[in-house]
């Protein structure tokens, strides 16, 4: 039995009220949506806010729809709804797949995409009961001053473990944050920082209200698409975008990723690559955008040789740590495997079909 620490529950009806409650109570207040991350963490005494501010009554933070040249997704949309929504599945199958692979069905019915983006980092030595953590003398991230992963490090290396952000980054999404004084937009790629203790640029009194994903924008080389009467169509040169997501985990359900790979590619009509982005996560505190892919892939077709070269390039820059209970060397060996599988899906996939549920 794990009891929650005492708190007061607030249920504001607007973003403004919610932000003002967060601002008023400062570090004593935290926002909650689905609660699937915060509630267990509070039961573990990782957070003990005196005030919990529910966002669930804020209608303006719901909805999925085309807005200009982007798909707008309200932060309160559940992961189940993201994974089954026809617009998301049609335009961003990698994102739909990722949302559909978060945890298990009940958690996807509760958890929201906003919460997934703001998910706390995770570590073997952090996501434990207070008794467990205390027995080990606590850790850098919470209540202690030693990192049990790196032993000597002064920087927390808890792992970014959310499934949707690597896809949002690869798709060039922007996030909208509302705080007490203003509303700002930030690229998903700039949202995360390499600090395992607080790994996002969201201030504690800011709320992530929505995200916008370009329907056919630049991937890595600035080439975009056109829209015709509000409907997405390939750009003038017939470039099509595809996306795929691979998640390594012990079981095909419930578990957080041991390694995750999101890939987004733009393909000319003849199958050559016009743009390719890969993002790998569940390594350190922020997702890693893979470097050096353009020189291998641009202007080439995705065949066995180029895919092998891309997978090897990925392996060379990913170094999993012992921050997740499964062996880091094995997770590293799985980097090229998962990257290869993601790219093979990208090469073989159609433009409008999500990948199968799992595998």
């Amino acid at each position, binding site marked *: 039995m794990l009891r929650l620490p*005492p708190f007061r529950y607030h249920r504001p009806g607007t973003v403004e009220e919610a932000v003002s409650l967060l601002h008023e109570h400062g570090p004593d207040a935290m926002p909650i949506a689905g609660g699937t991350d915060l509630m267990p963490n509070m039961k573990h005494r990782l957070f003990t806010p005196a005030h919990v501010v529910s966002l669930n009554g804020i209608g303006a933070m719901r909805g999925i729809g085309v807005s200009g040249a982007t798909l707008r997704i309200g932060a309160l949309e559940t992961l189940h709804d993201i994974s089954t929504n026809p617009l998301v599945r049609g335009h961003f199958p990698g994102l739909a797949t990722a949302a559909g692979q978060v945890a298990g*069905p009940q958690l996807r019915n*509760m958890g929201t995409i906003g919460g997934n983006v703001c998910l706390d980092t995770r570590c073997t030595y952090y996501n434990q009961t207070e008794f467990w953590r205390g027995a080990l003398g606590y850790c850098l991230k919470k209540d202690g001053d030693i990192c049990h992963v790196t032993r000597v490090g002064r920087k927390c290396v808890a792992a970014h473990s959310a499934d949707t952000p690597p896809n949002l980054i690869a798709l060039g999404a922007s996030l909208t944050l509302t705080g007490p004084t203003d509303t700002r937009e930030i690229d998903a790629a700039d949202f995360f920082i390499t600090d395992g203790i607080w790994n996002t640029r969201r201030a504690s009194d800011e709320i992530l209200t929505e995200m916008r994903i370009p329907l056919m924008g630049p991937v890595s080389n600035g080439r975009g698409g056109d829209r015709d009467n509000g409907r997405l169509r390939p750009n003038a040169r017939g470039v099509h975008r595809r996306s795929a997501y691979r998640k390594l985990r012990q079981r095909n359900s419930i578990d957080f990723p041991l390694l995750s790979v999101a890939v987004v590619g733009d393909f000319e009509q003849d199958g050559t690559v016009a743009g390719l982005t890969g993002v790998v996560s569940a390594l350190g505190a922020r997702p890693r955008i893979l470097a050096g892919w353009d020189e291998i892939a641009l202007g080439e077709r995705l065949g066995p040789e180029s895919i092998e070269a891309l997978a090897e390039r990925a392996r060379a820059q990913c170094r999993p740590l012992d921050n997740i209970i499964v062996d880091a060397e094995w997770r590293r060996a799985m980097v090229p495997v998962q990257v290869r599988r993601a790219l093979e899906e990208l090469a073989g996939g159609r433009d409008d079909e999500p990948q199968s549920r799992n595998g």
Partner: protein
Amino acid sequence: MEVVRLRVNGDERACGVPAHYTLLEALRYGLGLTGSKQGCDKGDCGACTVIVDGRAVLSCITPVWEAEGKDVRTVEGLANGTETHPVQDEFDLNGAAQCGFCTPGILCSSVALLDRNPSPTRDEIRAALAGNLCRCTGYAKIYDAVEAAADRLGG
């Protein structure tokens, strides 16, 4: 203590709870509905699964206030009076329960599935129950029972 009003299995109930109670604690310790089980108590195992507004959710990590004004169904509310729900009946006939601790949650996940999708495939059943851990049965008889219940409901 504060008073929370819940609609559980069709009944309007009020109970006094501390503000930091979960829905599961309110059901078990406020209303005496101990069918929903307190297993891992942190959202992993699925033993506390209940149906809120038609969707299977985990009551152990649902703040009780989020259930106010919603329709909550627990394992106690699946039967129609003394007549068991076909899923319950088929769990019995197929030997789908052993120790029984996970059963209330699995029944709720199964009923939420069948209410939405009356004739699920085996894979859809597996996917719908992927958030419920059972350490006894190995799942095969559970899937058999849900399939049989779907046949009965459809036929």
